[in-house]
């Protein structure tokens, strides 16, 4: 533990030069270790590279990118850099869009992962006296076990409630005195709605204080809404199974960008088309290189997540760079009539309307040969008799959306709770367009 009681590890207080010195040392060790991976050995041979070519951090750019497709092509174990008998855990993605991907872990990988998650939770004030309830799916989904081990490492009483069964989640809140919850944003809103239906006031009837949200792109207004609903501070979490899972980047109490742990990862932001680095502070695709992974190191992995590095120093005293909230994934992008649109742009507009509830659904369909976007938005309790106000509201939403996305969507107000509810990641986009 560090001398600063708010820091979990000494690395948190490192200066830029200390971070970069450590990164170079670990990058060189990682590259050397990658030569034990059949995949990387071949990659380096094809690129005419040897580990000794990596002398500075800038030399990283000589190494080819690793993609999700590479993970699929080497399924299941072709990337491993240690013998399988040294691996103790495997996580696999669902593979809905092709071959699944597999991530292997040694015991040391799991220990480091737990440490990174513990560091994140400690940063936002989680302490051994807290009760941590995890509403993530367990099993293959890394948000389950990832938070479980991190929370236990801090010494919190940890409730592996897992996904779904909303009434039971709420009963656990009240019975166990849960103080910290991990939930995706749409499910946090759902928990609040069900609490209201059951006459439970989160401020009065629970000890909830901290919410960890992630895994689903969401706007700042959505965060504030959820904070107000539940009477908590909500902190943004970023992770992905390829990088273990949660614990990659996390907001500090400033709630202004997520510190990415640069003793574990080297961060690059590149233009997804040219793959060249974008200028400082501009949005691009996040590319990560692991620095401490044993079983499956990844070099310059293209995450498909779009974000930017927030310029400037964080008042919290950590020098690990901050990522802006994810703008969506490059593969979430909607292309409508040649315009690139991210669902988060639409959500950002919608959540500024006090008259609207939290749920919405974007539908893309072909009508009479024309591709159109419909946005269904749930209303709060409005005066239905005032038809003029309802019309003015949908007109204003339409206008603001058009200004943001440059296309005029059809906006439909729908009653509260009429859109399909899910207990997993919310379905925000339905695309039934004819593909040519």
């Amino acid at each position: 533990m560090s001398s600063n009681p708010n820091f979990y590890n000494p690395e948190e207080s490192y200066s830029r030069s200390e971070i970069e010195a450590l990164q170079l040392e670990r990058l060189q060790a990682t590259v050397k270790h990658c030569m034990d991976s059949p995949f990387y050995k071949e990659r380096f041979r094809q690129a005419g590279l040897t580990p000794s070519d990596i002398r500075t951090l800038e030399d990283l750019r000589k190494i080819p990118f690793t993609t999700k497709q590479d993970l699929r092509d080497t399924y299941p174990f072709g990337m491993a850099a240690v013998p399988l008998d040294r691996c103790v855990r495997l996580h696999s993605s669902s593979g809905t869009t092709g071959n699944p991907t597999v991530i292997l872990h040694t015991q040391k990988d799991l220990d480091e992962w737990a440490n990174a998650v513990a560091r994140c939770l400690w940063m936002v004030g989680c302490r051994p006296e807290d009760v941590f309830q995890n509403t993530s799916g367990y099993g293959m989904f890394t948000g389950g076990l990832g938070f479980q081990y991190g929370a236990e490492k801090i010494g919190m009483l940890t409730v592996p409630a897992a996904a779904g069964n909303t009434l039971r989640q709420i009963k656990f809140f009240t019975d166990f005195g849960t103080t910290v919850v991990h939930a995706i944003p749409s499910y946090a809103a759902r928990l609040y709605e069900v609490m209201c239906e059951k006459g439970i006031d989160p401020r009065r009837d629970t000890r909830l204080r901290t919410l960890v949200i992630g895994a689903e792109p969401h706007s700042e207004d959505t965060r504030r809404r959820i904070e107000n609903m539940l009477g908590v501070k909500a902190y943004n979490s970023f992770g992905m199974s390829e990088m273990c899972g949660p614990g990659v980047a996390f907001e500090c109490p400033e709630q202004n960008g997520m510190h990415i742990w640069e003793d574990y990862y080297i961060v690059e932001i590149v233009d997804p088309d040219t793959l060249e680095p974008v200028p400082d502070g501009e949005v691009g695709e996040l590319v990560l290189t692991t620095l401490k992974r044993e079983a499956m190191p990844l070099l310059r992995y293209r995450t498909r997540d779009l974000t930017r590095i927030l310029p400037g120093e964080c008042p919290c005293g950590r020098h690990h760079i901050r990522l802006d909230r994810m703008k969506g994934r490059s593969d979430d992008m909607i292309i409508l009539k040649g315009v690139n649109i991210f669902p988060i742009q639409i959500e950002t507009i919608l959540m500024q309307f006090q008259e609207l509830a939290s749920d919405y659904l974007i539908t893309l369909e072909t009508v009479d040969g024309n591709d159109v976007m419909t946005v269904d938005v749930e209303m709060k309790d409005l005066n239905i008799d005032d038809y003029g106000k309802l019309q003015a509201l949908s007109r204003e939403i339409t206008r603001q959306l058009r200004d943001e996305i440059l296309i005029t969507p059809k906006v439909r107000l729908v009653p509260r709770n009429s859109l399909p509810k899910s207990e997993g990641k919310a379905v925000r986009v339905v695309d039934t367009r004819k593909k040519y």
Partner: protein
Amino acid sequence: MTVHQLSVFIENKSGALVSVLRLLKQAQIQLIASTIADTVDYGVFRIICSQPEKAYDVLRKAGVAVSLNEVFAVELDDRPGMAADAIAFFAGEGISIAYLYSFLLNGKGVLIFRTDNAGKAAEIIAAHGLRVIEEKELDQ
């Protein structure tokens, strides 16, 4: 001097109206007068009915977007020109009528309407001695 009216948000999809009517039927609510404003995207179904508070609770609990409002119900003799004379009182004072519909009750005409200024409308009703229907008269 007003009666309760339900305003129900009807999504523009088949079955939306009938599901609201079925809920009212199951609760043994009787419609006295109703009207639907039809628009491209959704309808507003306005209802004068027996036990409006109960009807409101039933619809709300079923997740229907509904509001309970107070509207004027003015009784007029059932003969030509009565509505013209009554509405002229409001027009003369610059009060706009947002919507209006009518029905017969015990051989008398009843005008249901909402204005842009309820306070002023009440004054006009009193000043001209228009007879307003009370809620309990509807339940007979």
